[in-house]
């Protein structure tokens, strides 16, 4: 995020939001025009009433009811017209803000999905949801309440100043000078207020964090009997939030009351100057009173504008957070001029690939790997060896920092996403499921898949007996995040979801780690029969997969240290030999 001063930050942020969202600014001048016109027409009412009182009621002995009625009807007509015009201004504003912000919301959502932050920094996901919910809502609030006030207020100020200048230029100068002084003061106070609001936001984030932890960590809290400790933690965070909110409100109250003082002082000044100079310059009481009426007209919106400053602060903060997302360049972008993948089985190449998650911790430097088309490869290594990252580079979840990953001789960066996902399927360990049925989750891999295709995939993977014991078979709802299924079952669904794509390259990253051994072996054997001739890369925690592979890649601290068949590597006496001994010890029959 940029580090410009906070005061200009808000204005900068709000200006940026208008730039980023053309819908917001489309026709904004027409809207302002409507607001100004409405305010102008509305002024007819007090003027008419004043005239009626001065001419018809106070002036004559007998009131001319016809004349009063006529003027009254004019006022009512003006009032109705003002209603129509002002309503139109508000409606236009509402439409523009709701539409523009919905667009901004969707854009931010899409942009977030195209960044890697969602899966590399899983813990921040909850906070990122706020970008497309509460941050947008704070801008919406500002547009709908503050924006209206701003629109009408500015129109009123301009009208009042113009009218004043027409009445008495010298008095108008006094008022304008005062407004300028007050505005300078407001900007100064607003800076203090901005700091207070920043503190509130920090405190709000902290108490949200504390509440979020209490809610999502509830099972752990229950298991460890830490309810009271958690409650105290939440209470402390909420108290800290309350104190900073109250302090800010106190500051806001002072700010708002300064508007009242300003109004009083300016009225006193106009009376003073008017009375002292009026006697010599020939000003009538009527002129001065009309002028005072205009002063009142001017001061009212200034109070509203001060209030708007408050809302602008939190809207500005929301905008800044959204801009921080939108300003992060997309790492994985579709090529402008995509190359079509060749038909048939595909070979894989890593050409001088370097990669790191954090600058100070390089993972791969100059990695070269070639996997022949149609081979079954297992990737093994200890935690942190880079085996999982290898699969993410291969599937273009990440792009290399330098070097290229090629599929069928084409660099991944030159392949259209649709083309790539049709030919290559990747099953990560998590096995994330959506809150719908088993069938719909499988169909997520291939939206146009028929019921028959889904059943065929299940049969291919020899999972029929598993599906049969589900409460409602394929129509069983899986619950939120697949919570109604066990971890192993979730992985089975995720596997079927990739299988249904019928990919030419299958990449599995510990995709069956939570499935029981018997079922895992059975499923793997079923797949082996079917993927003959296709390229497959399996990142394996359990070495039984490696035993069955054509070739094994052994990673250690970001380097490819060994490769070969299972028998070759066991005999080699290196890293794999030790890993395999460990595995055999863990899985052998215990006599």
């Amino acid at each position, binding site marked *: 995020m940029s580090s410009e001063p906070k005061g200009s930050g808000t204005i900068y942020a709000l200006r940026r939001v208008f730039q980023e969202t053309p819908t917001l600014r489309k026709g904004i001048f027409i809207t302002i025009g409507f607001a100004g016109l409405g305010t102008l027409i509305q002024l007819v*009412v007090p003027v008419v009433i004043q005239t*009626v*009182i001065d001419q018809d*009621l106070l002036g004559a002995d007998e009131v001319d009811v016809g004349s*009063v009625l006529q003027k*009254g009807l004019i006022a009512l007509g003006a*009032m109705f017209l*003002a209603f129509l015009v002002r309503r139109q201004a508000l409606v236009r504003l*509402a439409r523009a803000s*709701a539409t523009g912000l919905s667009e901004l919301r969707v854009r931010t959502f899409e942009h977030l999905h195209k960044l890697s932050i969602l899966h590399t920094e899983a813990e921040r996901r909850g906070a990122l949801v706020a970008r*497309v*919910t509460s941050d947008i*809502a704070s801008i919406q609030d500002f547009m709908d309440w503050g924006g209206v006030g701003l629109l009408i207020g500015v129109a009123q100020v301009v009208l009042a100043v113009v009218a004043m200048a027409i009445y008495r230029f010298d008095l108008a100068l006094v008022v304008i000078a005062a407004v300028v002084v007050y505005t300078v003061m407001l900007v100064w106070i607003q800076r203090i207020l901005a700091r207070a609001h920043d503190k509130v936001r920090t405190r709000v984030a902290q108490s949200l964090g504390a*509440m979020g*932890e209490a*809610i*999502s960590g509830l099972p*752990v809290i*229950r*298991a*460890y009997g830490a*309810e009271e400790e958690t409650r105290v933690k939440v209470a402390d965070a909420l*108290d800290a939030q309350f104190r900073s909110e109250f302090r800010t409100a106190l500051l806001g*109250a002072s700010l*708002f*009351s300064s508007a*009242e003082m300003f109004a*009083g*002082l300016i*009225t*006193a000044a106009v*009376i*003073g100057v008017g*009375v*002292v100079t*009026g*006697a010599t310059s020939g000003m009538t*009481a009527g002129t001065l009173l009309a002028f*005072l009426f205009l002063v009142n007209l001017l001061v009212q919106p200034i109070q509203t504008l001060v209030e708007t400053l408050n809302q602008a602060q939190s809207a500005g903060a929301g905008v800044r957070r959204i801009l921080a997302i939108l300003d992060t360049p997309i790492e994985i972008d579709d090529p402008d001029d995509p190359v079509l993948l060749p038909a048939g089985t595909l070979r894989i190449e890593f050409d001088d690939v370097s990669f790191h998650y954090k600058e100070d911790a390089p993972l791969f430097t100059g990695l070269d790997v070639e996997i022949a088309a149609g081979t079954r490869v297992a990737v093994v290594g*200890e*935690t942190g060896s880079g085996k999982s990252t290898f699969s993410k580079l291969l599937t273009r979840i990440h792009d290399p920092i330098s070097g290229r990953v090629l599929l069928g001789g084409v660099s991944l960066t030159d392949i259209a996403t649709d083309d790539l996902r049709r030919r290559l*399927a*990747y099953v990560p360990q*998590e096995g994330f*499921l959506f809150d719908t049925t088993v069938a719909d989750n499988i169909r*997520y891999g291939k939206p146009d898949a028929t019921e028959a295709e889904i059943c065929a995939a299940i049969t291919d993977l020899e999972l029929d007996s598993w599906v049969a014991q589900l409460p409602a078979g394929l129509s069983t709802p899986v619950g*939120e995040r697949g919570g109604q299924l066990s971890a*192993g079952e979730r992985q089975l669904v*995720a596997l079927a979801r*990739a299988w249904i794509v019928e990919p030419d390259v299958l990449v599995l990253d510990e995709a069956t*780690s*939570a499935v*029981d051994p018997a079922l895992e072996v059975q499923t793997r054997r079923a797949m082996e029969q079917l993927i003959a001739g296709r390229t497959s890369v399996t990142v394996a925690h*359990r070495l039984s997969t490696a035993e*069955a592979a054509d070739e094994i890649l052994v990673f250690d601290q970001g380097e490819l240290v060994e490769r070969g068949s299972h028998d070759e590597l066991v005999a080699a006496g290196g890293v794999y030999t030790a890993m395999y001994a460990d595995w055999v*010890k*863990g*899985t052998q*029959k*215990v006599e």
Partner: protein
Amino acid sequence: MTTQHTSLKSMLREGGAIAVRFAKARTGSFVLAVVGAALFVAAIVASAIVIGWVTDELIVPVLDGGESYEDLLWPAMWAVVAVALWKAAAVILRRTAASFLQFRVQADARHDLIEHMLKLELAWYQRQSTGTLLAVSDTDVRQGTFILAPLPYGIGSSLLLVGTVVLILILDPWLALLAFFCLGVIVAVNMNGAWRMFNAFRDVQSLRGEVSGIAHESFDGALTIKALGRIDFETARFQEASERLRDKLIYVLEMMATYRVGVEGLLSAVTVIMVIAGALRINSGAVTPGDIVTIAYLLSLLFIPIRIIGFVLWSIASSRAGWERVQDVYDVRDLVPYGDLLADSDDTGAHVSGSTVSFAYDEGGAVIEDLNLAIKPGRVVAIVGPTASGKSTLTALMARLWDPSTGSVSIDGRDLRSFARSALPGEVAYVSQESFLFDDTVTGNIAFGVLASEGDVVAAAKLAGAHEFIQELPEEYDTTLGERGTSLSGGQRQRIALARALVRKPRLLILDDATSAVDPSVEARILERLRDSEMPSTIVIVAYRTSSIALADEVVFIDDGKIVAHGTHHELTAGVPGYARIVEAYAEDAAERAEEGRGA
């Protein structure tokens, strides 16, 4: 989505009840805010009187009558400033007190909500989405307390409304009747608007929940979505929900614009009507022109209270819509029942038993059925079974994360349900497949909910095989983990979670596949250390690897929610084919492969 229509009366009654509840909870600040509002309104009247006085005594005589201003100029200016000071002070009082009221009530409501949720059964919790619960605690509480911002102001300024009608009554009863009728119409229009808004607000709120739900789910599944190339689909799904929210918002905002501008227009119209009616009354000699001037002026003052009353009514609508969802959580009565047994500080392992235990989740059939089990103190027991056989559920029942539908689970003959709140974790420690880390230091995460010395924490970390990597973290045991902290690998997280259990020296330690992401040799070392340590625990582990199972004294083989066999690993391997099939799957696979290799 269906809009349930709530009647105007019930909206006002329930909205009023919410307001009364808040006002009662914080009477002091509520009264202060009302007083501040009343003082403010009085100041507005006073400023009008002062301006009138200055006009009559200073401006007109000086400018039109040519009199000297010497005597009155300074007093007049001072009077104007003094009234402004009064107004400013009243503003500070009203706003400060109202803010105190609003923010304090919000903090209290959030605290009470979390406290309440912490007491509810996990069965209830499992049915909720954590995102929704957080939204209830955050946005719904905020929306539910909206009413508190304008309420004191509304009450205080209503005095002006009453005062105006009374003053007009004194001047002329017929005009007062007319004013009363006109103002009644305005208030009725306001109420009608609030009522229609209420029903629309509800839809907006539920659409907001939908948008947030999709974002939560979609962000959680980000890797899967990217892997399957479905970003466009997700964006379209989100866009659809966002646009439905947009349309509803436009509908609400248009309605609001109509009422807002309409009511202000109506108020101007009332002034005009009163002046016309006043003209007729002058002719009949009932009132003087001066009275009409006063009435017109009084009516112009009503802009403030009418506008604020509108706000109050609309806020009642939106408050009720928000508070409804908060109240729904408060009203959940699925409290975990507790007894009064305290934890036993005995330093022997616990005797665990389950008799005729059955369990079913909300949807679907029985996961555990009529299960009987006894585990002797100090034993290490492995629970083995195929995918989805009920292993995790069984361990969760032992830790009393759930209660059985029938039957009972006890340790040392004491039913788990007879323990006092927070007492059971003094005896039982449970580590699940998913390790949840708190936004706290390593030490804070390990010594979670328990008083432990630094030495205890390090010892537990060593036992859990976590000490080595903790020492390599930027600030070792003081490194912050969790949402804003350092990211750890799955295996590292699991070891921290294990240390969290071990530091309590539990009499029953339950590990539900808790070391699945740890390398096999590391896992075996941890389990060996555990068994050989001085810790007087009964240990229950859910495991697959024969190396882990071999460390167990006995094995419980479970399938389809029933115990199929209970004995030593040897007995089960020899006598239970289903068991052998699972634990020896890899060995069999390797053997078969070797066979095939030779055959080829």
